[in-house]
């Protein structure tokens, strides 16, 4: 019987997680003036493919810092904890795939579903009508999010994958 060796939490690994967090945060804030055009989806997918579930640490620190910037309102902050986690899990399931078209498609689907995922607390506190109203009111933004994610994925997946291929934990 073989046992899976637990990877030690080295300084190098912590530094990579910090760098991932910083890149996600800075690039997200840099594009924050353009509604629903964000690089976080692409970066979470790329980092998950390259660094596995260490990306989750970066996601949670990113959510923590975003909360410190914008306030920890549960209606947006709690979704922030799970929406990126769900994306990371999906990206991990597809980690062997290399087609930029596939990743662009996945990112587009995710962008389209983003509002629905974020509406869960509204479904929880206000039942069906409140959640559905919230989802419908944001559907226009979700369409923009979908197209933006698709284009970002299509054009940046290959160059960023190449850039990341020079970096490894080893």
């Amino acid at each position, binding site marked *: 019987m073989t046992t899976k060796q637990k990877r030690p939490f080295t300084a190098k690994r912590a530094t990579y997680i910090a760098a991932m967090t910083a890149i996600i945060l800075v690039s997200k804030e840099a594009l924050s*003036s353009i509604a629903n055009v964000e690089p976080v989806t692409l970066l979470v997918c790329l980092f998950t493919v390259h660094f596995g579930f260490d990306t989750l640490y970066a996601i949670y620190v990113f959510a923590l810092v975003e909360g410190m910037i914008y306030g920890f*309102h549960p209606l947006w902050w709690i979704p922030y904890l799970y929406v990126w986690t769900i994306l990371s899990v999906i990206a991990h399931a597809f980690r062997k795939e290399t*087609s930029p078209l*596939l990743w662009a498609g996945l990112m*587009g689907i995710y962008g*389209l579903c983003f509002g629905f995922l974020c509406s869960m607390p509204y479904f929880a506190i206000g039942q069906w009508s409140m959640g559905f*109203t919230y989802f419908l009111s944001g559907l226009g933004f979700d*369409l923009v999010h979908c197209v933006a994610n698709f284009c970002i994925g299509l054009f940046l997946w290959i160059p960023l994958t190449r850039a990341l291929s020079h970096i490894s934990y080893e």
Partner: protein
Amino acid sequence: MKRKTGLILCLLAVLLVAAIAIFTFTRPKTSTDSKKITVTVIFEDGSTNVHEVETDGEYLIDAVKEFTTGEDSAYGFFITGVDGVEADAAAEQWWCINDGNGEMLMTGVSDTPIKDGDAFQLVLMTGYDY
């Protein structure tokens, strides 16, 4: 790999068409007809100021821009002041937009369509636990 890519793209296309259809059919209709709406401003101490507004505008922003201040953002106009009273962001104050029954709207002032006879409330709130 090609099969998976095809499946993902097909799924995207189906979801996109469905989303566009839902968006198109559920989008509230707007009109440029003349309309009269009521906007009740409720201040922190409970005092009120009622504005009866006549406008041809399609959205709430067209009716309230005369007595509000704020900033344009990527998500539309963000009200920071009403009738000269500015919300103190440091004290977690903000202007909440309600319908005539006091129910908070899910849309911003730039995305809320108006029709003749509509009533709205602009309420100065403190804190984010609402």
